[in-house]
């Protein structure tokens, strides 16, 4: 049919054979388009109808003849002044190549020389970045392997790793591999590595962590194999996903003695993403005869569908132009047209010609490579102005004067942003509802669409459920709340102090031993104050079954192993004199009885609060309480107090008020608050209006297969829930932050210090003003050591908590029996100098494997971890202020 329609394709005709021409002819045949050349065709007397009806041989002739007769046209398209627009859009798409990484340990010819082979089946400049761990290593940092282990070509990196390039495997060209000799007699416990592609700079890890090949369980000291079977589960768990591994055992028949040993072999699939540059060229020419525009689009992309429409003004609202449309065009949901471009004759890409009416302002399109991959122009639709004189053309030129490559947007449902995806679906539904769906001709697959919508609904519902269930103010609200507080100048608000508090835990697990702790501490009062502390937490003061005071008996008897009531008052007086506030350690969860009931159970109390067994919770069978069920967890070593009893609460309130008045405590540290409902704590706080209060809500973080989860939201949620139950009248120790610091520092996984939202991962990230951050206390450390901070890294912990929001609490031992005193003092002074407070704003700058860095209140910067970080010198000038092992702090000037 129309000569002009096929014209761009015909440019290739001369170079091609009949089959190619037939294709062209066919596409002409299938087209029903009426365009400008129709007229011309009639004018020349060519037989349009014949062309349409006979696709075979005559077409070839016709096509070639039209080709020759239209050569001039083809050239004019390129050369004539009619072409008012021509632009080449660069397009980058990502191609994914899949391959595998394998790890093999075998023995060479039974000589006792063991090798670890790491290989990869994809082409690339592969580098093995590796290190070793020794048997008695506690930390997770790597060491450089001993010299004799390093294959030739290895380059040391820093002081803990080396890099060895992979080489083409002998025998099989498609593999790249590196061999490392293993000496079974060495003390190397494991080899750790990641694979790095130097071309793309990409790192390949195992499930987001280093590969780790443990050796110690595998090779016995005499160099023989312990047996692959006993070893495999360990290996599998750590190294590879069980479902993807394709392990083949390669038994080596070893002649050495009669022992049969086996090697091991594991694989992991990997995918490498390569960016491929392509381009799309669009030219538009005006056909003077018909006053229509011809748009020719060609690209070197293989098979591609153009998803297009036109617009009438600068608003670029998509419209479907009136037909006829090019061949292989379908209408997509009444909103756009989809045209499959025809393969070019030289096989390199494809092209298409679009005839467009006059009066249209622009041609809009995106390219669809496959179901998940769309090519857009800088995130927008491609736009081609259709009027030579219009301002749109000028605008286009302006916009594209600095051409950046077009990016690929893969609309993969799993990877794409959920919200965006949902919005898309919602829009789809909205469109359907608004009556666009009237085209009966579309009877196509719907099941998958329905399924995906249902899945999306489920996902959303699950999200809503989890938030509702936790029934806490969301983080967003917290911000509002904090800001509200911020507006009023920092004032004494119940339970949170001034906001600038720094707490010293004024004792350790051994402090009772001397019998005169109060007096000893009194001598330190001035010193404590001069270090910059504002609050001191004293040990539990009551008579107690255990000398440390946490098994209280008669609450009104304040003679303890720490000293008597007069000494206590003296100490508190002295601390007050020094300008310090004092926290009393109130043990409210449990109380030791003085008498037995008729069954011989110790559950009758003595002293001034001579409660009977109605004051004991009913659900701990050991103590046969007659109260209500516990409103929290049970502490099994002593009768748990039933706080739901009015008389109990009344007595406790009285007692605490007495302590406030008689002793002069300014606030509370509340022991084991997991044991009873936070609402009762609120009751007590309301009754005693403490200056500062903090509860110990300590339970376990979440671990999966012995490894701490990155997301500790559930853990901090429980603490937040408790604070909420107290309606914020008390803060809580930020156990979450301590836990995350442990992992981050110990395993060199500093990325853990940012949560998924880029906030601090502990309670301090959610409710900073109620978080009391700490590194160690009398339980976790001291002589008990239930959960000791990674040894030698305490200063990193302090660098973190003393620069961050929340109220930091420093452990006694770290000031008075360690070398950290001066360093901590410097940090405290620094915190006070810069007026960092419990609601300061953290901006996390970096949370990488080996370094974490943040800027707080825009005035100080801190990094912890061995990695490198420098605060960016922009409008602010940063100068180093403090530095210690693996931490550094800057202040802006």
């Amino acid at each position: 049919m129309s000569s002009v329609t096929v014209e761009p394709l015909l440019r290739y005709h001369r170079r091609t054979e009949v089959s190619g021409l037939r294709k062209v002819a066919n596409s002409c045949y299938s087209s029903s388009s009426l365009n400008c050349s129709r007229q011309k065709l009639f004018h020349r007397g060519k037989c349009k109808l014949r062309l349409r009806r006979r696709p075979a041989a005559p077409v070839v002739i016709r096509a070639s003849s039209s080709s020759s007769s239209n050569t001039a046209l083809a050239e004019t398209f390129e050369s004539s002044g009619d072409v008012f627009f021509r632009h080449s859009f660069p397009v980058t798409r990502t191609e994914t190549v899949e391959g595998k990484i394998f790890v093999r340990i075998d023995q060479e010819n039974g000589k006792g020389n063991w090798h670890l082979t790491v290989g990869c089946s994809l082409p690339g400049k592969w580098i093995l970045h590796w290190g070793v761990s020794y048997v008695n290593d506690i930390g997770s940092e790597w060491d450089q392997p001993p010299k004799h282990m390093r294959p030739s070509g290895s380059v040391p990196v820093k002081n803990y790793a080396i890099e060895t390039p992979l080489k083409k495997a002998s025998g099989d060209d498609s593999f790249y591999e590196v061999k490392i000799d293993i000496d079974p007699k060495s003390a190397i416990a494991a080899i750790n590595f990641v694979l790095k592609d130097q071309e793309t700079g990409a790192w390949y890890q195992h499930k987001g962590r280093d590969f780790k090949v443990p050796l110690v369980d595998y090779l016995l000291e005499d160099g023989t194999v312990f047996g692959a079977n006993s070893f495999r589960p360990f290996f599998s768990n750590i190294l590879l996903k069980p479902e993807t591994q394709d392990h083949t055992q390669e038994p080596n028949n070893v002649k050495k003695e009669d022992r049969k040993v086996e090697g091991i072999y594991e694989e992991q699939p990997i995918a490498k993403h390569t960016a491929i540059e392509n381009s799309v060229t669009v030219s538009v020419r005006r056909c003077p005869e018909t006053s229509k525009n011809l748009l020719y689009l060609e690209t070197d992309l293989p098979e591609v569908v153009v998803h297009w429409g036109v617009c009438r003004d600068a608003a670029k609202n998509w419209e479907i132009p009136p037909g006829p449309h090019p061949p292989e065009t379908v209408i997509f949901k009444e909103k756009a047209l989809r045209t499959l471009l025809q393969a070019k004759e030289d096989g390199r890409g494809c092209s298409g010609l679009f005839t467009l009416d006059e009066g249209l302002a622009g041609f809009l399109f995106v390219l669809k490579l496959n179901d998940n991959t769309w090519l857009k122009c800088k995130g927008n639709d491609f736009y081609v102005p259709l009027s030579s004189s219009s301002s749109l053309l000028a605008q286009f030129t302006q916009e594209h004067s600095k051409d950046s490559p077009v990016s690929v947007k893969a609309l993969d449902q799993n990877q794409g942003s959920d919200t965006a995806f949902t919005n898309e679906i919602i829009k789809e539904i909205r469109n359907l509802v608004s009556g666009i769906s009237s085209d009966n001709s579309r009877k196509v697959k719907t099941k998958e669409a329905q399924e995906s919508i249902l899945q999306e609904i489920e996902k959303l519902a699950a999200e809503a459920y989890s938030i509702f269930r936790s029934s806490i103010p969301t983080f967003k609200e917290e911000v509002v709340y904090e800001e509200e507080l911020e507006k009023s100048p920092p004032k004494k608000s119940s339970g949170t102090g001034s906001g600038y508090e720094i707490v010293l835990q004024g004792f350790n697990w051994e402090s009772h031993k001397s019998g005169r702790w109060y007096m000893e501490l009194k001598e330190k009062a001035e010193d404590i104050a001069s270090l910059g502390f504002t609050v001191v937490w004293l040990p539990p003061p009551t008579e107690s079954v255990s000398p440390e005071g946490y098994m209280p008996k008669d609450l009104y008897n304040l003679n303890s192993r720490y000293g008597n009531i007069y000494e206590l008052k003296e100490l508190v007086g002295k601390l007050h004199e020094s300008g310090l506030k004092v926290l009393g350690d109130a043990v409210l969860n449990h109380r030791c009885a003085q008498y037995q009931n008729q069954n011989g159970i110790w559950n009758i109390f003595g002293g001034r609060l001579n409660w009977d067994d109605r004051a004991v919770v009913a659900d701990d069978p050991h103590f046969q309480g007659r109260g209500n069920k516990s409103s929290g967890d049970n502490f099994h070593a002593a009768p748990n107090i039933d706080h739901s009893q009015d008389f109990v609460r009344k007595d406790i309130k009285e007692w605490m008020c007495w302590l406030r008045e008689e002793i002069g405590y300014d606030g509370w540290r509340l022991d084991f608050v997991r044991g009873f409902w936070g609402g009762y704590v609120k009751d007590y706080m309301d009754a005693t209006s403490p200056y500062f209060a903090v509860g110990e809500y300590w339970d376990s973080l979440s671990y999966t297969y012995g490894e701490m989860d990155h997301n500790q939201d559930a853990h901090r949620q429980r603490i937040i829930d408790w604070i909420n139950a107290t309606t914020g009248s008390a803060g809580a120790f930020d156990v979450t932050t301590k836990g995350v610091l442990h992992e981050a520092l110990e395993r060199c996984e500093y990325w853990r210090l940012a949560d998924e939202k880029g906030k601090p991962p502990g309670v301090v990230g959610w409710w900073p003003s109620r978080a009391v951050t700490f590194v160690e206390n009398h339980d976790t450390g001291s002589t008990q050591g239930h959960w000791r901070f990674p040894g030698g890294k305490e200063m990193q912990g302090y660098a973190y908590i003393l620069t961050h929001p929340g109220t930091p609490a420093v452990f006694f031992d770290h000031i008075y029996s360690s070398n950290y005193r001066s360093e901590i003092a410097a940090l405290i002074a620094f915190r006070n100098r810069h007026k960092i407070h419990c609601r300061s704003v953290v901006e996390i700058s970096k949370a990488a494997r080996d370094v974490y860095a943040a800027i707080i209140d825009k005035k100080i910067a801190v990094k912890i971890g061995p990695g490198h970080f420098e605060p960016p010198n922009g409008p602010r000038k940063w100068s180093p202020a403090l530095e210690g092992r693996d931490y550094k702090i800057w202040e802006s000037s």
Partner: protein
Amino acid sequence: MEVSVIGTSQATFCSGGELAPCSRELRFCVPKRNGDALYFLDRNSRRRCRNSRLQLTLTAAAQSEPVRSDSFPVQEPATTPDSINKVKLFVGLPLDVVSDCHSVNHARAITAGLKALKLLGVEGVEVPVWWGLVEKEEMGEYEWSGYLAVAEMVQTVGLKLHVSLCFHGERQHKVSLPRWVLKIGESNHSIFYTDRSGEAYEDCLSLAVDDLPVLDGRTPLQVYKGFCESFRSTFAQFLGSTITGVTMGLGPDGELQYPSHHQPSNNNIPGVGEFQCYDENMKDQLKQHAASLDNPLWGLAGPHDAPTYNQTPDSSPFFNELSGSWQSPYGDFFLSWYSNQLLSHGDSLLSMASDVFTNTGVTTHGRVPLMHSWFKTRSRALENTAGFYSTDGKDAYEAFAEMFAQNSCGMIIPGMDLSDDEQPDQSMSSPEMLLKQIQAACKKHGVGVSGMNSGLRLNGFDRISKNVVGDENNVVDLFTYQRMGAEFFSPEHFPSFTQFARGLNQPFAGLDSDDLPTEETLPVEASVPSNAEMQTA
């Protein structure tokens, strides 16, 4: 022909060649559908169009809906359960969706929830707007920010919003009346409903003070009206588009009733409740009423022989099945006065509301209770103490339906999830029959009925479906499912709800399979025809 173009996509015509220009012109001359569009569409013309050659019923169902639902305020008897009759599903937002400090509680959860509902084809959400929150501190000082944020969230997702104006408190969720009202109440207890023992019900003002200047010189009715007007002007941009309906709070729990049964019962059997006519103003009015009937002795107090809250009808003489004084002339005197008080209270509130919301594009509603216990007795005590003079031979609902009709208000009936089988035998209860009775009254007077469930339950869905779509005598245009929250989205509940929602005639579930997206979602936002927004707006 004009009618046909509503909601018909341009593209349909494009493929039809010469019709294309025609359709484009017409599309723009059709008025916004939520406005007065319906007035030039009489039912005949709609019908004609549906039969026309162009198959104009291809307009998506959602387009035709508003035409129908908008039709009841103009008193068109809703008697045509034609093919387009379809129940719109709403879901209630949590009662505490807006917090004390006017922020949106659980905003993230709500956003996710709204999206899920939209995908599910739910029409919209209902939001309870608390008087005690918006006008908390001082009379005439309104703080709407929290609810504005909610309206915006709802609009963004593309759902509709039905607003319930709540002039009552909710003990369970610690929502009370405005502080300044409670303060007035401290010195003037008689603004609250009071029972025989003198105990005041502080979650709602007594209807007896509706027209008394008890609130710093203003009458409660004036205060309610000020609230409604403030709402109207604050939400003007949403009215008629996102906000499609308003429910006027009429009493305890928002329902048109006396707080006669607010004390929880000790067992499964609800008692009969107590008459609430013992505040000073009620007593005065009763006295006057009795005097006007020349029976001053009857106006000295309420029935002396009525049972208390959790007693059974037969436990004392008034409601006794056979010999109760409810059948006596005194009983008739008292019960009709008591019920008429409620009726005229409802009348003045609803007429005020429909006045305020006239020409805003929203429909006005009121809610009545479903007092189903003791329905199968002759004295129907629970309904009577709540204010509905319904006994053997009396049907209070007729009068109430007529009152709703006069004020062009739709009636919301709760408890559509309740079935007779689940009720304990001793309670002589029949939610199903009571519902039928109320619906019949509504039908008779042309009042549009909307449904609501009594609460989240797993086994109520069948009953709801039956009630809203099952019976052609049921004229239910809208069903509000109560209510969003953790339990709503729990794995135990949400799947059942999904099934229920899809089972209703909702866009997503109800579309022919042909109409669903055929492929992955569109990458091109701009490819949505510009008129799509207008059509759904």
